[in-house]
């Protein structure tokens, strides 16, 4: 995370002109090597965190580094979360946010359950679920780009809406009978991986490579970053901002639906609120991966590493007698540390000033301001 001269803002505020945000302490990287230096910095910290976590896990439990633990407590548990983190990365990079992706998962799961219980052929069911996901994303994209509404507010609304549609489709029903050939995708290991990787994990690896290449080496990916840096400049440079953002939301919907299909097959259960609690962990992992909430900054590699740190830490804690309901403390602590550590020095200096009673603004000419009643 970078220090912003502007105040901490909610989600997807448009980035102000560079002259305003530019902090004198951290000059904006001007060359590619400058950008890479920053990236290496954050990602190497994640690598160190990952090594420490794995070492810690191996030290506390002999089970930690076994194939069965990695398969059932890492790959299976976190596959869908990892897949949803990828499109979320792109959306946050473009300066927007999508809080509805986990509800798209639920909607897709409900559709799979409902249609397959009505004896639709499974390939058709999967196509319908994926199409529904794209439609959800399209609606988000149109609301955000064509009506110019703030994405944070829109996707809070559609998050509730999609989960609501999911409840309308399935009601209180829980569908648990699915063809064995498909539930095997959810619970069996991918062939030729020695029982280590689930289908969802393999899919995540493939998708991560694709997303990485698209983001870092194609005009589309670079335009996403450009939009996140400065929307106006991107517009003037000829990037079709609205179209790119709509495409990102559709991609997000598609990935949410894919995660929903995997989720349904893994648990052999379709329920109206499947996976809806995953939304905040998904956002947390992306931010932990060094993606700036203001957009424009971040890498797929960082997010992949953050996913690994998150999974291994949670799985290590699962093997101890830690209260499994309190596991999310890991998410919270990691998130907070990830934004505090990089700027620790500055924060300490500012904390001294803050405690000293001068406020965080620069000493102003109006020195004799009366103390406000809130103090």
């Amino acid at each position, binding site marked *: 995370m970078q220090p912003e001269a502007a*105040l*901490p803002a*909610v989600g997807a505020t448009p980035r102000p002109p560079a002259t305003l945000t530019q902090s004198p302490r951290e000059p904006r990287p001007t060359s590619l090597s400058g950008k890479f230096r920053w990236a290496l910095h954050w990602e190497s910290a994640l690598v160190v965190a990952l090594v420490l976590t794995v070492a810690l896990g191996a030290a506390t439990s002999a089970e930690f580094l076994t194939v069965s633990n990695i398969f059932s407590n890492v790959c299976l548990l976190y596959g869908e979360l990892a897949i949803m983190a990828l499109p979320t990365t792109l959306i946050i990079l473009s300066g927007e946010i999508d809080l509805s992706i986990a509800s798209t998962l639920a909607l897709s799961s409900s559709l799979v359950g409902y249609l397959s219980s009505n004896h639709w052929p499974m390939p058709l069911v999967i196509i319908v679920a994926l199409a529904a996901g794209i439609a959800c994303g399209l609606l988000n994209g149109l609301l955000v780009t064509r009506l110019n509404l703030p994405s944070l507010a829109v996707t809070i609304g559609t998050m509730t809406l999609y989960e609501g549609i999911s409840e309308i489709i399935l009601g209180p029903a829980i569908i648990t009978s699915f063809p064995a050939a498909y539930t095997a995708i959810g619970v069996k290991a991918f062939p030729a991986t020695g029982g280590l990787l689930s289908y969802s994990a393999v899919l995540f690896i493939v998708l991560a490579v694709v997303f990485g290449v698209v983001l870092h080496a194609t005009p589309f990916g670079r335009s996403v970053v450009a939009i996140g840096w400065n929307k106006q400049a991107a517009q003037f440079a000829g990037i079709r901002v609205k179209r790119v953002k709509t495409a990102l939301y559709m991609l997000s919907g598609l990935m949410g639906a894919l995660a929903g299909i995997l989720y349904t097959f893994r648990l052999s259960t379709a329920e109206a609120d499947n996976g809806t609690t995953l939304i905040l962990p998904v956002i947390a992992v992306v931010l932990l991966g060094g993606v700036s909430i203001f957009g424009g900054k971040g890498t797929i590699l960082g997010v992949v590493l953050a996913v690994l740190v998150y999974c291994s830490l949670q799985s290590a804690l699962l093997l101890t007698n830690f209260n499994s309901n309190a596991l999310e403390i890991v998410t919270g602590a990691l*998130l907070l540390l990830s934004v*505090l550590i990089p700027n620790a020095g500055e924060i300490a200096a500012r904390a001294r000033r803050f405690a000293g009673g001068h*406020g*965080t603004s620069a000493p102003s000419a109006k020195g004799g301001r009366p103390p406000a009643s*809130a103090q």
Partner: protein
Amino acid sequence: MSPAPSATGPVQGRGPQPVEGHGAGNPGQPSSTLTWSSRRLLDAILRVREVGIVAVLVVFVAVATSVQPRFIDPQNIKFVFSNAIIYALLALGETVVVLSRNVDLSVGSVLGLSAYLSSDLFSQVHHIPIVAVFLAGLAIGLACGAVNGAVVAVARVPSLVVTLATLYIYRAIDVLIVGGGMVVASTLPGAFLSIPTSSLGPIPYLAIAVAGTVAVGAYVLASFRPGRELYAIGSNPDAARLAGIPMGKRIFWSFVVSGGIAGLAGVLWAATYGTIDSTAGLNYELTVVAAVVVGGVNIFGGSGTVVGAALGALLLATINQALYVLGISSFWDPAIDGALIVLAISLDHWITLRLTRALRKGAVQHAT
């Protein structure tokens, strides 16, 4: 850093129609059926956002009552109020934060922590006065809010990230403290449990107290320097900084207020539901943000009132109850809530565009 998107063509006329029913024809286009003065009247009414929410509220109550007369039974009204109270209170605190272009996602977790710890005091300390329990809840909330505020103001980390993190941390602390246990109603004194149920006719005393709190909040935000400065910060952070507003302090205290209110709401939650485990207030945060947004508070700060936010909470509670009374399956609730939120922000955006246009037109007329 312009919060509201600049005026664009496509929205015109495509936005939702005004719910007040004043607009004959399409209000986005010059219409022969509306004279200039009546359009101004419409604009003046739209400018007071609360009127719109009250109008929607009235429409819902009227429709629900005409279909099912027992909707306005005192018992039913009481039920709506008791559902809305906690959300309205949380929406009040959330608004204070949102006005300065921040967000507090940790309110549900703070509520949970406060609900358990404060109600547990009844079995820990014999004959503890109820006021002391409320103060304990308030103190827990203030402490949680102070942590949020300190990190946001001092570390200048986006509040979305900070409160997302503390949402997990406070909830995990709650889970670790509660373990598998829970506080049950039999350990709570009767006087405590009767707080939410005692009422003046169909209106619970608590609703009156919350309305009073909201009124005080509205007055402070509208008429006192710190309140005005929160609006200034939300409207334009850079200008606010240049104007010498102590942004860090204002933002810090806005989180403290939000936390304190969530702490109080936790005690009320405990009194209302009687059974408190570690899931109290789970997933409340997004509903509270939704109530604030429906209440006409701009999610990017700078505009909106606590009265609107509280009405937004009341509206959501009324609609859910109306759907129930009308016999619509409760499975439709979230979908309708979601559609309503999307509609509310679209409407809000349309009103903003319209007002901007009206102001510009007025300025031109004045000049000529």
